[in-house]
């Protein structure tokens, strides 16, 4: 289905004594198709071959994808459970000894039981992630609430997709990251991309992005830096970090002023227009320019292009979302499409670039503190009842909602939470305000970490459980389009490693909760129960069987039953998911970043990714090619700013904020605003920029403001007073 101009029938190269296993990349939300090359005598993964027949990415991969296969048989793999008896070594790599699974499980169960007996069920917590299959994400939510019976579960999507989710829910009543399939992207007439370094973070979108321009369409990019995608943009709106909402309001004002509002669409399919129109009146080009630092002309021109475009897609990513008004930024950008009616048809709509491989699926099915499978709410008695039926518990057994990811660390500090089961995440690098977060982890009475490498977070654990890489398990993932796809197993787990779902089932048994889990003996079993659990929810996967996924090259949710082939385009009937079927145009008062530059901290610090690394870098920093290409973090500085601090290229400087400091190498480039510095966040220990970032949380999504805080630079070897 959906084969487009980029699709070519190409036979794969097969080498003698090898077989190819079709699957997808382990990393970002693009979920590029790939074939893993497996040696048929050793049954080990030895390489990668493009998957030309995958309709979204037609064989293309970024360097992370090309080298992803090197994770599985890597020398750093943890092959046996590890136990550390000496708690004084917490926060270091030291003191671990190998143990049997039985010994590790016994220790965990004893500690968990003791803590819960003394301090109550909610003294335990689960911190999870979404770089794993739907089956694992689903089971993790069930394990926390039914296995451990705790309310405290949340996940790293709070640091990634939660603002997009919040914005979509408010504007549309449903949170599917893209309203259209990626095969539409290159066919639109205007791409408006805000806060996405697409070329580095979702590189395999780029052939479609460039094609819009090759066809004579327009590319508008909003970013404080001239990223590789901004370099070629028709208009680069180089805003100050943290001012997206002012820009969105300013453009909306111009669209309305200049007659680009679609009156009948607004009338029939939306609420909230008049109020919003009033609110954005204030955002004249002059005022918008003053707030954002962007030239007035460019704002006017961008609004004109977006307004005129027959079809346009507004896309955004963490740049807009990782702010303490991330949800408002998202709804603000969505407003552009709702007011102009450029949504609910092919080639026009809204999309967020999902960060993690399963950032979409993983947030829908119950790892979030207030959600249950199928995007159900734990605060809605009817929803709770539906899930209780599937799980075999009574509604009064369902725990209350918990708290968000960062707030869990606050509860670890004050000893409300005393035990942690961490999987598929590395918050000791990826959380904001790291001095506080690392202390919180140190403060725990007992911590378990499941990972396949010894991550910076595993250094705080008492027990480490060896999990498997993506290629040693199977299951489904939902990519950034909302397409459910299949990950296939290419190799048996190495050493004594096990998939997380197996650990959770075995732990539940030992915790005396086996009756709710023991009928599940494979990823497929979990998949079947999971589909059932989503039935009738907003994110309905019931009809997305593994067979259908294979036959159709993926299934877009919602997919309600056997006959349903899925929903590539959302809202074609112009029906939104709010009770009255209308979308909400949101009136959003502007507010500046939580921490504005001042005399003491005059610079704006923003953070982001490089093409060679993924998230906390726990995986990619171990891959030789990727490490060679980007071994260390750096601070990007405009030459004029560098001059004012007397800094030269490759000199080491101290960068600091109210929360922390670190030493970075200076990288001078004109491709950044003069008032802003940038540091990539993939690095551990004293190299983590998150030692400096601020934990100002969005009131709705609880997303921290990674993208803007106030900072200062100090030249090394020179006293501050000089």
């Amino acid at each position, binding site marked *: 289905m959906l084969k487009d101009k980029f699709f070519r029938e190409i036979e794969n190269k097969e080498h003698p004594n090898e077989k190819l296993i079709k699957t997808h990349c382990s990393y970002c939300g693009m979920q590029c198709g790939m074939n893993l090359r497996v040696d048929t005598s050793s049954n080990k993964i030895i390489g990668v071959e493009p998957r030309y027949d995958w309709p979204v990415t037609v064989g293309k991969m*970024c360097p992370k994808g090309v080298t992803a296969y090197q994770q599985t048989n890597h020398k750093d793999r943890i092959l046996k459970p590890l136990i550390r008896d000496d708690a004084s070594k917490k926060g270091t790599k030291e003191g671990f000894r190998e143990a049997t699974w039985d010994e590790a499980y016994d220790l965990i169960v004893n500690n968990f039981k003791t803590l819960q007996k003394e301090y109550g069920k909610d003294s335990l917590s689960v911190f999870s992630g979404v770089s794993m299959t739907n089956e694992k994400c689903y089971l993790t939510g069930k394990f926390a609430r039914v296995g451990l019976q705790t309310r405290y579960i949340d996940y790293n999507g709070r640091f990634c997709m939660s603002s997009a989710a919040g914005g979509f829910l408010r504007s549309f009543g449903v949170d599917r990251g893209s309203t259209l399939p990626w095969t539409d992207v290159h066919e639109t007439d205007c791409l408006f991309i805000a806060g996405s370094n697409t070329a580095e973070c979702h590189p395999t979108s780029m052939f479609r992005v460039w094609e819009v321009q090759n066809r004579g369409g327009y590319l508008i990019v909003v970013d404080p830096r001239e990223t590789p995608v901004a370099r070629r943009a028709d208009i680069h709106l180089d805003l100050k970090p943290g001012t997206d909402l002012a820009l969105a309001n300013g453009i909306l004002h111009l669209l309305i002023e200049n007659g680009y509002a679609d009156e009948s669409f607004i009338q029939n399919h939306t609420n909230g227009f008049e109020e919003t129109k009033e609110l954005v009146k204030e955002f004249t080009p002059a005022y918008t320019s003053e707030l954002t630092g962007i030239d007035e002309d460019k704002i006017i021109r961008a609004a004109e292009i977006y307004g005129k475009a027959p079809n346009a897609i507004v896309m955004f990513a963490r740049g807009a979302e990782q702010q303490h008004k991330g949800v408002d930024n998202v709804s603000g950008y969505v407003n552009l499409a709702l007011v102009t009616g450029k949504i609910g048809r092919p080639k026009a709509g809204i999309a967020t670039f999902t960060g993690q491989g399963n950032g979409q699926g993983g947030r829908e099915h119950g790892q979030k503190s207030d959600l249950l499978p199928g995007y159900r709410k734990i605060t809605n008695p009817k929803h709770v009842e539906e899930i209780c039926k599937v799980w075999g518990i009574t509604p009064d057994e369902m725990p209350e909602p918990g708290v968000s990811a960062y707030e869990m660390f606050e509860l670890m500090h004050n000893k409300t939470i005393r035990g942690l089961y961490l999987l598929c995440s590395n918050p000791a690098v990826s959380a904001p305000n790291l001095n506080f977060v690392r202390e919180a982890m140190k403060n725990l009475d007992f911590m378990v970490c499941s990972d396949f490498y010894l991550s910076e977070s595993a250094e705080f654990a008492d027990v480490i459980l060896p999990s498997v890489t993506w290629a040693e398990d199977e299951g489904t993932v939902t990519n950034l389009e909302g397409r459910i796809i299949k990950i296939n197993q290419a190799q048996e787990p190495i050493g004594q490693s096990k998939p997380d779902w197996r650990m959770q089932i075995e732990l539940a048994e030992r915790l005396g909760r086996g009756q709710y889990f023991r009928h599940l003996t494979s990823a497929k079993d979990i998949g079947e129960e999971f589909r059932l659990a989503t039935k009738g929810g907003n994110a309905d996967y019931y009809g997305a069987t593994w067979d259908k996924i294979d036959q159709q090259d993926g299934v877009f949710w919602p997919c309600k039953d056997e006959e349903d082939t899925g929903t590539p385009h959302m809202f074609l009937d112009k029906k939104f998911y709010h009770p009255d079927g209308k979308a909400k145009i949101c009136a959003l008062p502007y507010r500046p970043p939580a921490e504005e530059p001042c005399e003491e901290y005059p610079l704006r610090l923003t953070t982001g990714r490089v093409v060679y690394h993924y998230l906390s870098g726990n995986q990619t920093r171990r891959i030789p090619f990727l490490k060679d290409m980007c071994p260390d973090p750096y601070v990007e500085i405009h030459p004029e700013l560098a001059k004012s601090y007397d800094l030269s290229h490759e000199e080491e400087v101290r960068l600091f904020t109210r929360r922390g400091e670190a030493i970075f190498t200076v990288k001078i480039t004109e491709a950044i605003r003069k008032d802003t510095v940038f540091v990539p966040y993939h690095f551990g220990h004293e190299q983590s920029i998150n030692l400096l970032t601020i934990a100002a949380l969005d009131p709705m999504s609880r997303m921290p403001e990674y993208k803007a805080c106030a900072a200062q630079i100090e030249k090394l070897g020179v006293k501050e007073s000089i």
Partner: protein
Amino acid sequence: MGRKLFLELENCIGCRSCLAACTQCGGHDQRNRNYVLDVNPFVNRQTMPLMCLHCVNPACARSCPAQAIQIHETGAVLSALVEKCIGCQNCTISCPYGIPKFDVEQNLMYKCDLCIDRTKDDIPPMCASVCPSNTLQWLTEEEIAEKQQQHEMENGKWVTSMPYLESETNVKINLPGILQGKEKLF
């Protein structure tokens, strides 16, 4: 059959996936054989791949005293034959782009062979297979002709699709500037 490598330099995003993928071709011994350059790193993020252009009359092969560099019937200029290469590095010096690399330990030249293992069967080379930006493409003669036509300016003066750079090459190139003079949709 008969597709050729085509470079559209304007598209490059500097991801170096082409280099990572190069190591994946059978017979490439996990070593990558080309380069990606930062064009003007202090100013902007423009990058470009520097690939072997597989010259029709290749300087590297001409300069080789041991006739170690063979030309495949597809036009691909192959890596040095292990048994013939004497490690003199004439090829690297004579190549206008400095493409052939040298393994000091093995005293052996190695270079891009256009994934001959794949391209002899018209399977695209690894670099063009993975390139996320379509900087590197594997196209038929007709598709290349179409590209070149698209990018010729009316005044005939500023064309990105030059007939050839130093001399005639099997790999075809569009230099940066493909969007100049592009007629917009609206």
